[in-house]
């Protein structure tokens, strides 16, 4: 035997060891870090600077670092933030905020009214955004600092809606004047605030690895009291399976915003059965719809877009329950039957027209409208773009199969979210001449967000989100009226009427609302706000170790 050969005995020995090892036990798993809350999030933020980055990922992170004048409670009511109180004039056109006097920026400088004035003038109104559009519509005159801790906003046309100070872009993340006032617009892009911002929020940035990790230290001087935990770590884990494994191994304490995907259903039961685990499920206030395009170019190419029978035919062709069940592997995704979200309970109209799954009826409607099938049974062949990141491919695949059953062949064009946005959603020409698309829209917690989608004044070329260029004068009038209607009951009636009209005409086919789950290790206590779908508005502040 030379030194190169392994004897049979040695080989057997090695094999034996290999089988015994797993029985001996695995290497110790990582224990949770005391005093630290580790959260796995699917969001991959590249920048922490609200002035530069308004992506969902960015917002999910910097909501812990910055604050606004006011905020939401769990019922979407506006409650004090950095402003202890406010006064709204009788006509609603002036609102005066009284700021708390003990607020400091993370670098120790006191927070004053000067910051607010500078922020709104320079940041909120200094760039094209929905904030600017709304402020202009309201007839914004100016914002002034009455004294160090009093700020006044004045408008002329539309009374101030307090929720604007929470939901409008840039409004709820006030930035420090003393650090940014001399920075040019261009230099903002590369400013160090992208990686190490200074805010007034409950958490300070300790370390930021763009796209991977955000380590935050508790702000001991936070005006509402320092957080009860020392550190907050937001760790980006893109794959749900990896996030789950990390949770089971004890590497993370909570899974934040865990989006439904095809693998979720069977996993969620298993996770609920894990020891020391709390699972919170809720519906997100977005709506995924199959939307038709009403632009001139599209209608010229596909005249049937204006025929309500054809749109109804599409609605009848889709078996929503099977669609959801197949595309999401049985996860409890709520199907949507109207074009408002159920989160706006008061405004929600559950009496709108519903189009049940009926293949024969669908085909009959197509025939009636003159869209006949050829020898292969094909009636229409349509291009359909969609955002490949947000809308699951599985949904499109099942949808395509269902439409194929009534003779509509879909040529799906997946586009990455940014490309989709710049080509269709945010482009001044909206959806161009594409006949239909599948898109998720978040009208927002507030019903006024609906105007942004269905009011003909809010087309993309004017900064709005009505990319299908839908125009219905009755709807326009109702939405305009509801915005200024003081009587709550009448307002509700108006919104309900809008919903009824939208569904009657099948402006779009609503499909489902997103389902989210949060998973918490029970060693961590948290208040309700932290686990509500107001993730863009609620920091991880009220958290503690039990």
């Amino acid at each position, binding site marked *: 035997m030379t030194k190169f050969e392994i004897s049979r005995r040695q080989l057997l020995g090695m094999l034996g060891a290999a089988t015994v090892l797993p029985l001996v036990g695995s290497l110790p798993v990582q224990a949770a870090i005391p005093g630290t809350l580790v959260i796995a999030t699917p969001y991959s933020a590249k920048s922490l600077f609200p002035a530069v980055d308004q992506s969902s990922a960015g917002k999910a992170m910097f909501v812990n670092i910055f604050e606004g004048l006011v905020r939401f409670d769990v019922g979407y009511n506006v409650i004090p933030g950095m402003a202890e109180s406010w006064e709204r004039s009788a006509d609603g056109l002036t609102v005066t905020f009284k700021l708390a006097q003990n607020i400091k920026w993370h670098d120790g400088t006191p927070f004053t009214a000067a910051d607010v004035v500078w922020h709104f003038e320079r940041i909120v109104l200094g760039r094209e955004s929905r904030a600017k559009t709304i402020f202009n519509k309201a007839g914004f005159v100016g914002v002034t600092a009455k004294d160090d801790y009093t700020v006044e906003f004045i408008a002329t046309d539309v009374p101030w809606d307090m929720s604007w100070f929470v939901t409008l872009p840039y409004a709820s993340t006030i930035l420090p004047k003393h650090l940014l006032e001399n920075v040019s617009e261009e230099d903002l892009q590369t400013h160090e605030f992208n990686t190490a911002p200074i805010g007034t929020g409950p958490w300070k940035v300790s370390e930021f690895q763009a796209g991977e990790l955000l380590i935050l230290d508790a702000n001991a001087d936070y005006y509402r009291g320092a957080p009860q935990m020392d550190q907050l770590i937001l760790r980006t884990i893109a794959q749900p399976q*990896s996030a789950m*494994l990390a949770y089971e191994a004890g*590497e993370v304490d909570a899974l934040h915003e865990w989006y439904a995907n095809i693998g979720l259903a069977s996993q969620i039961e298993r996770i609920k059965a894990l020891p020391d685990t709390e699972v919170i499920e809720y519906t997100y206030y977005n709506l995924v719809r199959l939307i038709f395009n009403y632009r001139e170019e599209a209608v010229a190419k596909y005249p049937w877009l204006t025929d309500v029978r054809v749109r109804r035919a599409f609605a009848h062709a889709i078996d929503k329950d099977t669609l959801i069940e197949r595309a999401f592997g049985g996860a409890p995704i709520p199907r949507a039957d109207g074009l408002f979200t159920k989160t706006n309970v008061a405004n929600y109209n559950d009496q709108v027209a519903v189009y049940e799954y009926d293949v024969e009826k669908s085909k009959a409607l197509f025939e009636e409208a003159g869209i006949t099938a050829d020898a292969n049974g094909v009636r229409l062949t349509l291009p359909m773009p969609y955002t490949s990141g947000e809308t699951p491919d599985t949904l499109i695949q099942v949808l395509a199969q269902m439409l194929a059953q009534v003779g509509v062949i879909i040529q799906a064009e997946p586009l*990455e979210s*940014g490309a989709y946005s*710049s080509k269709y959603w945010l482009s001044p020409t909206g959806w161009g001449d594409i006949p239909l698309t599948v898109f998720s829209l978040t009208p927002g917690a507030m019903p006024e967000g609906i105007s942004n989608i269905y009011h003909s004044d809010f087309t993309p070329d004017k900064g709005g989100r009505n990319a299908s260029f839908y125009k219905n004068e009755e709807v326009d009038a109702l939405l305009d009226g509801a915005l200024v209607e003081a009587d709550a009951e009448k307002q509700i009636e108006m919104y309900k009427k809008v919903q009824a009209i939208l569904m009657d005409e099948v402006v779009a086919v609503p499909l489902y609302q997103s389902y989210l789950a949060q998973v918490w290790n029970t060693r961590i206590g948290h208040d309700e706000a932290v686990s509500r779908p107001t993730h863009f508005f609620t920091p991880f502040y009220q958290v503690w170790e039990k």
Partner: protein
Amino acid sequence: MATTRYLRSVLLLLLPTLLLVTIINFVLVRMAPGDPAVLIAGPDATLAQVEQIRESLGLNGSIIDQLLAYFGKLIVGDFGYSYTFKQPVMDILLPKMGNTLLLSGIAFIFSLVVGVGLGILSATRPGGIADRIGVATSVIIYAMPSFLIGVLAIMIFAVYWRWFPTEGMFSLGMKWGKEGAFGDLVRHIVLPAATLALPNIALFARMTRSSMLEVIKQDYIVLARSKGLNERAVYIRHGFRNALMSVVTLIGLAVSNLLMGSAIVETVFSWPGMGKLMYDAVTLRDYNILLGGFIVFSLVQLLSSLITDIVYTRLDPRVRY
């Protein structure tokens, strides 16, 4: 002088490669559907940013001017700005490069040692059971995609047996310099390095085996035998040397496998290296990172080719520049 001649051949390869890479980058961005400025600006850019980029790309100048300007920037290492990470591309590339070099380096050494070792083992008992099984498995393993190997490795070793963590380079909160960092790193690097190394192990093992078997039939072995020298010693010395030389010719291919493998393996194991960065850049449509990374990888390939040449010259005294 051998050195100057060698240096000249290095330059002859370096310059055309750099030029080619520059042209590819340049052409691809401008041939893309849509506006190149919008492309570079990325998904979240504002109109103002897009205009800015259009200015800096100098899309109004002549093609030659633009090309020269771009080349000039590349030479000094200015790979532009990443609009999704909001930092210069170089600042993002460099730390990730270190992580990839670590992983690929370990994988390479591992594959060399294990591959050549297995090849020698196989060659000492040619035709035996172990040899036949070895050859068969090496063919299958070489044909298995890295993602399959990686995914299976995670399933078996990280999930089922919990020997190793499922992903990442360090555990949460751990980093260089902290106590226990080295052990943590070792635990995390085993699976991805093994996955990355497997195809090359198969490659090296087969090559070692066949070149050592070749040596048996060479005349000088017969001569040595007839001289009464220790057969084993001669066999090992000459066979090994021959095998090494053949293996060296494979280094280019091995590096190429490592580069491609790194993109996949790093993604599977969430290893924060350049391969994963490239993949993220594709999903984010961050073209400056893609282009910068592409240049870096080209240089790596170039470097490996040059090193292969040097090693080859050292090993085989007959080859001279």
